């Protein structure tokens, strides 16, 4: 019994990509203890390495201190040490710590390094002396591992050892000691002992260690000092060395406090425009209101680059004192500057910004007026009266901007104004802008039905071209009234309107268009509209959430209505996409159609395969001559030429009691655990028996695996 279980366990996990299901529910202590005992027994047995490895994995979950002795024996085993440490690192018992500590004296080389690393991960404070002894190990990698592990432990004793070692360590170990010191200092800093941390960071900064350690220690030395670290921060920002300059920039984003903000802001006056631009980004990232005056000052700089950078971060400060400057810049002759100012104004927070923009509207002209109207639209400011007045402005650009702004801001009661401008513009050139504005306004109206009613009413009096426009807008608005209007147009006699209406209905975004589309598919005279309507109906069946019965019924109706194989195949694809017993019934019914028999049979098998072995499935398949079979995979190979792999096991696992085999992935390379012949088209060759009769079949890469039933 025990051996059988072991075999099953091994078989479950030995193959690549197997499902790891090692627990199914919360287990009581007795069950866990029993599992642990069996796993320990595997380790103590002469079981193959593979079984012991997996036992270690499971002991990481089920193991206690009782498992430590057997796990410890594996720490000297080159093949199994890493597996043993998976368990020992995870088991929350002092016996695990003791096992790792004891092993330090017995191991060397990589195995010792691994054990030391695990001690570090477990932060075993009792191991400080053991690790301290290894700091002088002749193997620099061992000594380095000990230093870093001590850093992870990071208590007072470990810190003391590491600080002493920073002076005494050999050149090839000192950087690792520094890494350990930095970890200790970080722990102190996070615990609120910034002064002690700063001392350690400073010791590392003056030690002869690798440059990355100097960089890290510099960052720590700044942060540990808090506001007293500002001078050191500024020193980095001024550094000619790129690495220190960079750590200055990133630490400047971390160090909190007004002092730091003001010191960084003060640097703007001392650096070139490239550096100032970057410092402005730093100030923006700090999110400290204390930076606002400096950023605002930079907006007025003589340097274009600095001005653009400043405007780029100004939006982070809710400061409307910048609005006059930005409004002025937004009409600058320099398009880049103007665009930056406009973008900032659009995103600027602060209650007075909208007021400042509308205040200037009545007296503004030319470029300024155009810019203000664009801002009104972009910021969604209510200024309808002024915008309507601008619709009759002599400048076509102003009129177009006002239309666009109305599209974004006008309330529902002004929809009539936009309908009139779109259908009968006073200036012919305004028509495109007015039509865009009408659509933008219509789709955001809170009362959709009322909006659709107003548009539908306009439809009756509109010119043919405008009718098309209104139908398209109604399609975007959607809702009951719009659907009814479009349905009527689709049933009418005007071909252009039928075309537009069926197009809009075909892309409808809710299932309530289903009956309309089905009706059109059945009753419209023109084949092209029949097809469009039916495809729209099938799309609804595919795209939207519904019960299996509802989806199957829609597919059934679509199959009954379809006149062409193209649409029938689309329906079968929907059924395959959402496998259900209801859908299978529809596919089985479709096999009665001689023309569709082959495709429908294939779909039925695919659905059945996805549904697994449900009883209803077998009965339905029996109806189409596919009763359950006894399938045996004799041999399967996947690949090309002489680069083939045996995939018999994989195929056997996927095979059920149907001639169709569904793999875990549609991609054969994934399903079979790798590509045996990269860059080459491969084949799957299967030898099998169905109900005892032998067969053989070959399939192209990633093809459906439907085994012919041998005669």
């Amino acid at each position, binding site marked *: 019994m025990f051996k059988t279980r072991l075999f099953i366990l091994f078989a479950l*996990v*030995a*193959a*690549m*990509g*197997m499902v*790891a*299901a*090692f*627990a199914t529910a*919360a287990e009581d202590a007795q069950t866990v203890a029993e599992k642990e005992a069996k796993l320990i027994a595997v380790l103590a047995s002469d079981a193959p*390495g593979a079984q012991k*490895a997996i036992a270690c*994995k499971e002991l*990481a*979950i*089920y193991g206690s201190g009782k498992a430590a002795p057997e796990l410890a024996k594996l720490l000297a085993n*080159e093949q*199994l*040490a890493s*597996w043993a440490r*998976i368990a020992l690192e*995870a088991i*929350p018992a002092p016996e695990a710590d003791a096992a790792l500590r004891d092993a330090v004296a017995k191991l060397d080389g990589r*195995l010792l390094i691994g054990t030391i*690393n695990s001690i*570090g991960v477990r932060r075993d404070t009792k191991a400080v002396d053991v690790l301290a002894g290894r700091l002088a190990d002749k193997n620099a990698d061992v000594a380095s591992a000990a230093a870093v592990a001590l850093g992870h432990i990071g208590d007072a004793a470990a810190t003391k050892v590491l600080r002493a070692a920073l002076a005494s360590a050999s050149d090839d170990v000192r950087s690792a000691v520094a*890494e350990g010191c*930095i970890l200790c200092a970080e722990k102190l800093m996070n615990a609120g002992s910034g002064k002690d941390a700063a001392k350690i960071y400073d010791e590392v900064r003056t030690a002869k260690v690798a*440059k*990355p350690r100097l*960089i890290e220690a510099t*960052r*720590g030395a700044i942060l540990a000092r808090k506001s007293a670290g500002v001078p050191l921060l500024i020193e980095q920002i*001024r550094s*000619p060395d*790129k*690495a220190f*300059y*960079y*750590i200055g920039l*990133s630490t400047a*984003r*971390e160090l909190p406090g007004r002092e730091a903000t003001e010191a960084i802001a003060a640097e703007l006056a001392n650096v070139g425009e*490239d550096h100032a*631009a*970057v410092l402005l*980004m730093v100030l923006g990232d700090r999110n400290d209101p204390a930076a606002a005056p400096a950023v605002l000052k930079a907006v007025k700089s003589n340097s274009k680059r600095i001005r653009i950078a400043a405007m780029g971060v100004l939006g982070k400060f809710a400061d409307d004192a910048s609005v006059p400057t930005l409004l002025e810049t937004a009409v600058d002759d320099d398009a880049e500057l103007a665009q930056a100012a406009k973008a900032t104004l659009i995103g600027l927070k602060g209650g007075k910004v909208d007021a400042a923009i509308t205040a200037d509207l009545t007296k503004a002209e030319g470029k300024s007026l155009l810019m203000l109207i664009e801002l009104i639209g972009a910021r969604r400011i209510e200024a309808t009266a002024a915008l309507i007045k601008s619709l009759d402005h002599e400048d076509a650009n102003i009129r177009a901007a006002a239309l666009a702004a109305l*599209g*974004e801001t006008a309330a529902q009661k002004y929809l009539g104004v936009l309908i009139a401008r779109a259908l009968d513009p006073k200036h012919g050139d305004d028509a495109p802008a007015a039509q865009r504005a009408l659509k933008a306004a219509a*789709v955001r109206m809170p009362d959709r039905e009322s909006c659709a009613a107003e548009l539908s009413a306009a439809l009756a009096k509109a010119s043919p071209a405008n009718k098309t426009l209104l139908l398209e807008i109604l399609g*975007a608005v959607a809702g009951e009234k719009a659907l009814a209007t479009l349905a009527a147009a689709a049933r009418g006699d005007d071909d252009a309107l039928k075309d537009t209406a069926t197009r809009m209905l075909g892309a409808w*975004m809710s299932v309530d268009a289903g009956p309309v589309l089905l009706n059109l598919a059945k009753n419209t005279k023109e084949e092209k509209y029949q097809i469009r309507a039916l495809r729209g109906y099938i799309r609804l069946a595919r*795209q939207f*959430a519904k019960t299996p019965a509802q989806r199957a019924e829609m597919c059934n109706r679509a199959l009954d209505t379809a006149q062409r194989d193209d649409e029938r195949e689309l329906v079968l694809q929907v059924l395959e996409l959402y496998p259900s017993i209801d859908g299978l019934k529809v596919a089985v019914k479709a096999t009665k159609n001689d023309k569709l028999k082959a495709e429908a049979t294939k779909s039925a098998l695919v659905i059945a395969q996805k549904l697994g072995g449900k009883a209803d499935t077998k009965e339905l398949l029996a109806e189409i001559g596919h009763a359950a079979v006894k399938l045996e995979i004799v041999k399967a190979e996947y690949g090309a030429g002489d680069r083939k*792999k045996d995939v018999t096991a994989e195929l056997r696992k996927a095979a059920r009691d149907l001639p169709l085999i569904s793999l*875990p992935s549609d991609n054969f*390379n994934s399903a079979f655990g*790798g*590509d045996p012949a990269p860059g080459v088209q491969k084949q799957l060759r299967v030898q099998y028996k169905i109900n005892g009769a032998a067969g053989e079949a070959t399939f192209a890469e990633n093809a459906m695996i439907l085994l012919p039933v041998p005669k």
Partner: protein
Amino acid sequence: MKSKSRRPDRRGFMKTALSVGAAMMAPEVIPGSALGKDGAVAPSQRITVGGIGIGNRGTYDLGCFLEQADVQFLAVCDIKETRRTAVKKIADQKYGNSDCDTYRDFHELLARDDIDAVLIATGPNWHATAAMYAARAGKDMYCEKPCTKNIAQSLILKETMQRTGRIFQAGTQRRNLPHFAFACELARTGKLGKLKAVHAHPAGMKTMMSGWMTPEPEPPKEQIDWDRYLGPAAWRPFNRAHLDGFNFEKGGGMTGGGVLEWGSHCVDLCQWAVGADDVVPVEYNPPKDGRLVARYENGVELIIRETGWLPLGSCPVRFEGEDGWVEAGDSGKMVLSSPALLAGRKVEEIGGYPATFHVRDFLDCVKTRSQPKGNAVAACYAHIACHAAGIAIALNRTLKYDRHKNEFIGDEQANRLRSEALREPWRI
């Protein structure tokens, strides 16, 4: 191992240029329009890049890097000879020389002081470990996803990048695709009303582990360095089927799987949509009917589900608020509950791929030290959410997570799965 193709004179030039620069002037910082997006950039001002583990996905990433005028790709490291050679060929063709150096041991590449940043595109087994070694060597990095194998690695990744001051960009390029960013912003800024649920597509809902397969003859180290390939993963004999780095030891070989594979994209986007880059759900339920439901502290549901998606391409996400919803996928398309949410824009003009935007974001941040979209904090917590979901699947029970202590509440077995020992001599 080191190739003999390197020309010391060019590398020497780079070194000279850097040292002269250091002595005579402040470091180059090139903001705004001069960030290398326009025109040629002098070699001394380029970001020098090395590649670690450049396979299929990595080659796509590399293409995005090579498009940038301010990038100079100097060297590649790979445990597979064929890949080293292939990447060298691409780089040398790009620059019209034979200067791209090749290494089998990434320590040699990381030891080069003329390399600013690395592209890490190994299999997931190596991502976190290589990233940590790169950080400790003072390199900025673009690291493919999934970036970590467990919760502990996710936290250490974040802490290490902060401690070392490195710029880290996870290969979560969808954060820089305009239509995904637009959809996330709709959710984050309240345009969908009070957020109720965010939906993510996994690549399956099973947990996977790589086992110990039948031993096969091990190829020469020069061709395939098996010891290096295993790297931090527990030892097992060579078997060619393991060489599919894409799946090997993903998620620590115990709880990784489909949720982690696409979750590092889709759950990541959901986190962004919730505005929770430094937060994770506090409850994880095992899957039921193909849906895994997790909950944030504020009640928003994270729903990881396999079916019921609109046909918008792979890696779809959906965000639902009280007033509207939006769904987006890799096709670059979005479907919204109302066109009003587009505020006059068209889905087509918002646009989707290419992933070059994400690489550009990384390079700009290398120069300004701002945080890129896929930064270490965002990646850390998105990955924790995926790992926690994976543990709920593996244990098949509801788990409560204390996001402040980063531990499961009252579930020791779940807590044991938060980390896993690395094979010697590797550490993070």
